[in-house]
């Protein structure tokens, strides 16, 4: 537990770590559970916002109310995707250059655990029961299912090169994984770790959003500058959303992250090099607005009340906070180098 994050363990220490973890873990998790539940009674979440900075290998902590940077702490190397645990008491950070997933207590930001030997985790998602991590592994071009309790890779599925976005359906039956280099979306049945379909999509697929009824899967295709819409029943592309903010050319539009609001009506798409976030009417698949943000906008997160949209700008090392009512940026905050993922602890 107190080894430096970057150190690679030998088999002996690894096994010892697992053995000691099984003894200590209940204590740690117990303690975390107590502190977290106490604060949860007082307010909904800590209102802390965690931002992973890919190039400075640290996490910036921002006050979600005042938008002040509280502190930054070092984490494992090249942190990218982040996720809350099921009960939101913990959060997971995938570190591509250290082949591990670091686990932090949400209330305090303290490191509580590490899941080692996850080959170059780019991004990942968590099963709805909170028991399994679905991780895309860069090096092996696989998606692996990691049992959080036993730390074992329980299944590995061969997919296209440079797997990127991972998304699990609400019932946990299916995961979608994007292969950036092969321009495909893989549909994987989680029960038997079988690839159900390989869907050819537009160039450089990155991230997903599911419509509220889960009938549509939206996929950003970074280099093609579009979002493809896949019918989840037939696994076929049924539509596209194109973007072109004023003053930009098609090749500058490089969408990455996207999300759909809880009412299912609005989608926000970070347009990368076009330095804007697009607001899309989901029903008509039409862009209704473009909001100017920082350089290479790619990571997105909505506050629980959906009044604030946080945008990570990869090339200007800052985060833009958008007021979703006026669709204006109300504040930009300097964070670490190449901010990537955003987690808001406000529920």
């Amino acid at each position, binding site marked *: 537990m107190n080894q430096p994050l970057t150190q690679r363990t030998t088999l002996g220490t690894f096994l010892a770590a697992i053995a000691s973890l099984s003894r200590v873990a209940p204590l740690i998790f117990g303690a975390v559970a107590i502190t977290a539940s106490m604060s949860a009674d007082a307010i909904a979440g800590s209102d802390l916002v965690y931002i992973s900075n890919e190039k400075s290998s640290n996490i910036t902590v921002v006050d979600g109310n005042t938008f002040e940077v509280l502190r930054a702490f070092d984490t494992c190397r090249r942190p990218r995707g982040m996720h809350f645990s099921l009960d939101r008491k913990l959060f997971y950070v995938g570190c591509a250059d250290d082949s591990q997933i670091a686990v932090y207590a949400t209330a305090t930001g303290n490191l509580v655990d590490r899941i080692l030997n996850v080959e170059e985790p780019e991004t990942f998602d968590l099963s709805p029961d909170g028991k399994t991590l679905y991780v895309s592994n*860069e090096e092996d071009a696989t998606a692996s299912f990691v049992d959080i309790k036993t730390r074992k890779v329980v*299944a590995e599925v061969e997919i296209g090169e440079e797997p990127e976005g991972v998304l699990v359906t609400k019932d946990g039956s299916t995961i979608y994984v994007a292969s950036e280099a092969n321009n495909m979306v893989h549909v994987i049945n989680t029960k038997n770790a079988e690839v159900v379909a390989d869907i050819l999509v537009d160039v450089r697929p990155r991230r997903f959003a599911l419509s509220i009824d889960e009938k549509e899967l939206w996929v950003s295709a970074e280099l093609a500058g579009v979002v493809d819409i896949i019918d989840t029943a037939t696994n076929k592309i049924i539509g596209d959303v194109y973007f072109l903010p004023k003053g930009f050319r098609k090749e500058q539009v490089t969408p990455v992250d996207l999300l759909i609001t809880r009412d299912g009506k609005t989608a926000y798409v970070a347009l990368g090099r076009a330095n804007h976030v697009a607001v899309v009417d989901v029903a008509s698949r039409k862009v209704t607005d473009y909001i100017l943000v920082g350089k290479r906008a790619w990571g997105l997160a909505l506050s629980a009340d959906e009044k604030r949209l946080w945008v990570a700008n990869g090339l200007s090392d800052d985060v833009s906070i958008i007021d979703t009512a006026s669709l204006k940026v109300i504040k930009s905050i300097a964070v670490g180098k190449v901010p990537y993922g955003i987690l808001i602890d406000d529920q």
Partner: protein
Amino acid sequence: MINKAEVLARSLLSVLLLFVALLPARVALSAEKTPFTIAYLQLSGDPRYEAPRAYAGIEVRSRHRPFDGAAIAVRGSRIIGRALGLKFSLQRATAETTDGLMSELNRLNNEENVKFFLVDASADVLTTLSKHVRGRDILLFNVSAPDDVLRSDACAANVMHTVPSRAMRNDALAQFMIARRWKHVLVLKGEFPEDTAIAEAFLASARKYGLSISEVRDFVLGSDPRQRHKNNIALLTSGVDYDAVFVADSLGQVGRYVAYQTALPRPVVGSEGLIAEAWHWTWERHGAPQLNQRFERKINRHMGSKDWAAWVAVKAIVEALARSGARSGKTDFKSVSAYLKSPKMVLDGYKGLPMSFRSWDNQLRQPILIHTHNAVIGRAPLDGFLHQKQYMDTLGYDAPENRCRIR
């Protein structure tokens, strides 16, 4: 490493168990795949890869064949092959002569139905091959010849160029020099025809972008005192004013001594110092780290520009297959090659811009990286260099100045 291996072994075992348990369900996925072979042609004894080493075994230029780039791309295409019903493979064919290479090409085409060939050869060999296969369902990919003539008077309808031309690279450098206001340039040129070609390409780019040439001076390799005005860097760079020195040195034996020895304290560009190329191992944007790391893990060296050109050629073929409707193992040469050449092509070369082939000379339009030995300083087209249609067409021969009549 041990625990990694064990974890892998365990995961493999569990996956194996899954396979066994779910055998009937697997069958659908492991359906028969049609073999699809891409060939790689090379001449043994190609002088470009056998240039003499510098004194005491010091290699000043990379002499690696770009085959490795193609191999990485084919390896990376196996899952897209699963979706297309194709099993991709790469066949390397070597011959001692151009005639020998033509028989290899014919053999692969007749016996193994190979239609797409990566050609790692000089301009004259490439031209001979392309004339030989004209009119047949064969497409050649130039992965290593930068000669501008291949994109103008000697262009051919059946040759696609993924390696950037000299004109493109020098235009990129000229853009950078204009942006930095290095407007007056001293050109140092070596004694070989290749050096002349490099210098001429730069002079053309200098004219295009408005750089002025202070002087063009010839250098030779050696220490003959009677030739010292040609072999002494201080003398070669004195008696004239300039903002930068452009070195045209194909062998790299002299060029490497120019920086820090110039009479005036000025930057060195061209074959040494700041270099414009298709690729560099330190490029860290647009997915490049993944590609560079994958290449280094498998090949144990840095990925270079020709490696990238071979890699992207395979990628272009696979992309065109996928987009032109190749399914269930069926492919159609005409539609694949039509898609390859069409403006619909969106090729991801990990340089941030969607690439396609220029309709007028079959050159892959692409950003050019301007780099030092260990950093990428700029990516051309640079901001501010505008084009009415396509910023990337500010690099190399644009449609209006094109002399190619595709045959």
